[in-house]
């Protein structure tokens, strides 16, 4: 098995849970009992399938784990009236980005030194590296508004390296807006994550596309990865589903319900309008981009039965790659190789997860029962996340939860528990996070979008109810 970038430690699945529990136990003894129960449940559920588990490690375990990182509040460098507002936005966003990255042990803001160093000469690293902060790394800098420009100088220091502490310095210069203060914080956070995670770029600048209900319709919306900046992309007045952003962030493929049923639509983010996509007949839905951006796989019933077809991004050069009676839908490419497709098929009854080569050969069934839907392939090609109700059936109390399966071994772990119905997991570009839709009471219209780390920790809601089908951008 190829090692992830710069992996410094390998943590097996069980150890992830155990270390997580240990960490929380230290912080919050009252919750220990609940968590211990939870973790035994995870182990029980996974134990039967994860026999002889030795190398099942997720992306959270790549790179240096749990670096103790302190983020200082930035120092205001000008007296402009907006400086303190933007600085507040910047400080909050930076801390949230670094906390959400999943690879840092962030020093609480209540433990950091009172000083706000604005430059390399102003920082006293001993203050930061000693208790209670005990930081290994410190991010700091200054921020000011000058002539309607937002100017930010950011630094990252290795607190233990007294002779040459600076890891990097960055200057940002943007039009002074609150949104730019957030975007600059994202970029600075991504730079820190990139340097400290062993070369995997951060995701603070990535976007999530999703479906939002309103007035009986469903439109395609976009937001930042942290739930900020939510805004509509389409205004079609139709029911639009399954947004899929192209690898180069230029187009969104989705499907909308029209006179002839669901059809693939293509929206150009560069032109701000729909562009042509040829439809040949039947119902066409659930598009998926190949990692090259040159091909689109989707479900089409143009021959009467829903099968997986592949076309170019204009809908031309169509060819069918499945041929089996029953529903075939929800393809997702292996983004690492572009040579495999996972999808959902009802060919034997309830929908199951399958994989095949992208030419349709080598069909392999991955799930052994239940009701499996909505696969998303991890960026490193090793895992597939999907929604699964393992005890599906009339009267069965089964819940639909998010799972991760290792493709090579078909071993899986369950990431969500007892939180209602979960669906549409979508992998983040760094492979460390999963966005998904969750309805606490199981009712469709109550779905909201959440994210979590791939070991199931750090769950948080990004949107209000009435949102569904998240799709994380490729970068």
């Amino acid at each position: 098995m190829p090692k992830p970038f710069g992996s410094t430690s390998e943590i097996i699945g069980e150890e992830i849970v155990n270390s997580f529990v240990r960490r929380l136990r230290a912080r919050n003894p009252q919750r220990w009992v609940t968590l211990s129960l939870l973790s035994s449940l995870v182990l029980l559920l996974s134990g039967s399938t994860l026999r002889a588990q030795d190398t099942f490690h997720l992306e959270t375990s790549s790179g240096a784990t749990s670096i103790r990182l302190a983020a200082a509040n930035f120092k205001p460098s000008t007296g402009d009236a907006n400086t303190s507002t933007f600085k507040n936005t910047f400080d909050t966003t930076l801390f949230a980005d670094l906390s959400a990255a999943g690879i840092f042990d962030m020093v609480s803001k209540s433990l950091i030194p009172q000083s706000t160093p604005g430059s390399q000469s102003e920082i006293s690293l001993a203050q930061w590296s000693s208790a209670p902060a005990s930081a290994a790394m410190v991010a700091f800098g200054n921020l000011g508004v000058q002539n309607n420009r937002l100017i930010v100088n950011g630094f990252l220091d290795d607190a233990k390296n007294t002779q040459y502490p600076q890891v990097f310095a960055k200057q940002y210069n943007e039009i002074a807006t609150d949104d730019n203060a957030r975007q600059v914080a994202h970029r600075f956070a991504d730079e820190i994550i990139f340097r400290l995670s062993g070369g995997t770029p951060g995701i603070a600048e990535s976007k999530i596309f999703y479906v939002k209900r309103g007035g009986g319709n469903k439109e395609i919306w976009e937001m930042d990865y942290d739930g900020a900046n939510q805004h509509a992309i389409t205004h079609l007045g139709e029911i639009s589903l399954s947004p899929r952003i192209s690898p180069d962030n230029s187009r969104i493929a989705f499907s909308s319900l029209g006179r002839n049923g669901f059809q693939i639509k293509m929206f150009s983010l560069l032109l701000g309008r729909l562009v042509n996509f040829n439809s040949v007949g039947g119902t066409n839905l659930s598009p998926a981009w190949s990692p090259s951006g040159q091909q689109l796989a989707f479900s089409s019933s143009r021959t009467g039965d829903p099968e997986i077809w592949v076309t170019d991004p204009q809908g031309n050069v169509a060819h069918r790659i499945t041929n089996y009676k029953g529903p075939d839908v929800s393809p997702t490419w292996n983004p690492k190789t572009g040579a495999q497709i996972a999808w959902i098929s009802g060919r034997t009854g309830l929908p199951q997860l399958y994989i095949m080569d992208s030419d349709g050969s080598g069909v392999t069934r991955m799930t052994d029962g239940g009701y499996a839907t909505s696969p998303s392939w991890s960026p490193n090609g090793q895992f597939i996340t999907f929604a699964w109700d393992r005890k599906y059936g009339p009267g069965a109390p089964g819940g639909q939860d998010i799972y991760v399966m290792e493709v090579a071994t078909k071993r899986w772990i369950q990431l969500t528990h007892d939180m209602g119905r979960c669906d549409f997991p979508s992998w983040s570009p760094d492979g460390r996070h999963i966005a998904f839709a969750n309805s606490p009471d199981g009712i469709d219209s109550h779905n909201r979008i959440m994210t979590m780390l791939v070991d199931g920790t750090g769950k948080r809601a990004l949107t209000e109810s009435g949102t569904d089908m998240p799709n994380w951008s490729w970068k």
Partner: protein
Amino acid sequence: MIAHRTTFWNKAALVATLALLAASGCHKKQAAPPSSAMAPENNTPPPTASITADPPAIDLGQSVVLNWRTSNATSVSIDGIGEVPVNGTQTVSPSSSTNFHLVAKNDGGTTEANVRVTVRVPEVPAAPADNSGDMGSDAIFHAKVQDIFFGYDSFDLTPEADTSITAAAAYLNAHPAIKILIGGYCDDRGSAEYNITLGENRANAAKTALVSAGVAGDRIRVVSYGKEKQFCTEETESCWQQNRRGQFSIDR
């Protein structure tokens, strides 16, 4: 709409009855021996008489040829025409269905013969088979072409659905102008994308069955709504069952 439908079938029944009457009227000419022959005082035998109409049924405005034959009659009359020769033909153009009543007399007695001429007036439909151009009403359509329901996560037709499809095909074959939309629906459990393909399979199963029963495929439009358009939004089995349907409607 129901009233209209009742009238239609009453009229159809009426036409059928009249046709039967006309046929038996024709038949009477063979049964020549008059039933009303009276026992004569003298030895003169009573006349014989028969009358036919060709054709026995006409559309309003068309004419029909009456043809009568008698023997031994001294006077012959037909109601509505008056005295006529003992044998003869006459072209008539009645405005409504008419009984032509012939009376032949001689000293020996009186013999009667009847023929019924049926006149088809335009407000009576000619025959149920001739409906080209008629899209029919929604009420009749939904009575004849009923929605079908599916089992859990299934797109196989149930025996009940087969029965519905057979009845639907009979109606649609008799009304070739009707185009139909088959909507595939699913209950709101399960995943949105998968349910659209399941609904597609359901609608296509209904289409395939109709095509097998002789309904032309190009009359049928199939749309799968998945679980995006629910009939019923409660979380109960009866509600879910209502949502797992193939719905037929006239595609206008």
